[in-house]
C-alpha cells in the first residue's frame, strides 16, 4: 500500500440549490465508497477560494485569487492504494470530474535521510 494525495481543482459554483445539494450527495457517496473499501487515509477538507499567498525572502503577501477559477486548488484528501494505477482508477469516481474540474494524483514522497 502506498499513500497518495488527490488535489482537486475547479468546483461547482452555478446551479440551483437542489443541483448543488445533489452534487454534494455524490461527494458523500464517493467518500463512503472509498472508506468502506479501506482507501480513505485522510478525508482532508475543501478549501475556501479566497486566501493569500506569502512568497519570497521578502515574505510578500498577496491576496488571492491566485489563478483562474479552474486552476485554483479546491481541496485535498489522502488515499491508500496499491500503486499509482489503482490510485488513478479510484480518482475517476470523483464527482468534480462531472463539473469540469480535475484531480491531480500525487504519490506522497518519502524523503530520504
Amino acid at each position, binding site marked *: 500500500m502506498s499513500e497518495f494525495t488527490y488535489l482537486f481543482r475547479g468546483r461547482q459554483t452555478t446551479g440551483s440549490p437542489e443541483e448543488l445539494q445533489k452534487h454534494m450527495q455524490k461527494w458523500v457517496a464517493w467518500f463512503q465508497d472509498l472508506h468502506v473499501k479501506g482507501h480513505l487515509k485522510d478525508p482532508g477538507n475543501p478549501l475556501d477560494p479566497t486566501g493569500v499567498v506569502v512568497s519570497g525572502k521578502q515574505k510578500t503577501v498577496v491576496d488571492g485569487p491566485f489563478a483562474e477559477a479552474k486552476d485554483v486548488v479546491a481541496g485535498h*484528501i489522502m488515499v491508500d492504494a496499491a500503486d499509482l494505477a489503482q490510485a488513478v482508477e479510484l480518482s475517476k469516481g470523483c464527482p468534480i470530474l462531472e463539473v469540469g474540474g480535475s484531480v491531480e494524483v500525487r504519490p506522497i514522497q518519502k524523503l530520504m535521510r
Partner: protein
Amino acid sequence: MVAALTRVFGVHNLTMAQDVVQDAFCRAVEVWAYRGVPENPSAWLMATAKNRALDLLRRERTARTYAPELGRLLESEWTLVPVVEELFASDAIKDDQLRMMFSCCHPRLSQEAQVALVLNILCGFGAGEVASAFVSGRAAIEKRITRAKKVLAQSKTLFDLSAPKDFSRRLPAVHRALYLLFNEGYHGASPESGIRVELCREAMRLTALLLEHPLGRTPATHALAALQCLNCARLPARVDGSGDLRSLFDQDRSKWDRELVQEGLKLLELSATGSKLTTYHLEAAIAAVHARAPQVEDTDWEAIVSIYDAMMALVPSPVVALNRAIAVGQFQGPRRGLEEIRAIVDGDRLAAYPFYFAALGEFEFKLGRSDRARGHFLEALAQARNPMERKFLRGRVEACEEVSS
C-alpha cells in the same frame, strides 16, 4: 430530535444528543423571550439543534467516535454538512424515530424499562414526568432510565430497519411497548389527566409512524392502531365534569369522538388480512362492538362473549376469564355471570384485582342482594390502586347502603 441526533452521534453518545436538545431549548427560552416566538418554533428548534451539533462535531472532530455507519463522513468538511442535513430531513427524522423505537425495545430490557426509555427519548418526557406517569419515585425512574441507556449504548449501533427479518422479530416487542404506553395513559394510575391524555396521544403518534413504514404496516399494527383509536374516542366521556371515573355503562356516549370511532373501524377493517390473529385484533373488535352501540342497552353482548371465547383460546388468563364472565352476565343475566366468575380457573390469582370484587358486587347488586354487594365493593375498595378508582368504588358502596336503608 434526539433520535436524529443519536443517528449522527451514535447510540453510545446518547447523552450528548440529549444535551444538544436541552441546549436548543435553553437557547429558545433566551432568544424567544427577547425577540418573540418565531413563526415556526419547531423548525427553529431543529435548526438550532442542528447548528449546535455541527459545532460540536467540528470541535471534537477526531476526539470521539460517532455513529459507525457514518464512517468518517463527519471528520471532513467535504461531507459533514450534507450528511447532517440529510439526517435532519423530515423523512429521515421519521426513520430515525422508528429506528430509535426499535432500539429502545431491546430484548435485554424489561418492558417497563422499554416504555420508560421510549417516553424519555422519543416523547421528551423528563424523569419527573415519567415518574408521575408511572406513579413511581423520581429517583427510581432515573435509575431505571440510566440503566436502560447503558444497555442501549452497549449495542453500539442503532437498530437496522432495512433488515426485514430483524424488523419482524423485534416488531411484537415494539407493539407491546406501544400498547403498554397507551394503557398507562388510558387505565394508568396517574391522577393527572393531562399527563395521561399525553401518553395516549404519544402512543398513537408512534403507532401511526409505524404504519407509515412498509415493514411496519402489518395486520397487527393496524389492529393496535384501531384499538387505540376506539379507546381514545371514549376518553372524553370516561371522566365526567367533576373529575369522576365513569364506567362504560354510564358514560354519556354523545361525548364519544365520532371521527376517531370511524377511523378506528376503518383501521380494524384494514387489520383483517393475513392469518395471524392477535390480542390487539380481539381487543379492538370488542371496542368496536361498544363503539357501534349508541346506548349501553344496544350492546351486542353475545358478540362480545364470543370474542372473549376466542381470547380465552389465544391467551387464557384469570383476568380474561373475568371479563368474559362479566360479558356473560350482561348477556344472560347476573346469575349466570356469578356462576362464570366462580368457575374461573385460578380465580384466587384475582385476589388483588379490585375489578374482581367489583364485578361480584355489581352482579349481587343487580340480584337485589345489596348487603353482599356492599361487602364485595368494600373488598374492591381495599385493593383500589388510585384515587379515581377509590372514589368510584366508594360511590358503589354508598349506593348499596342507600338501597338497604
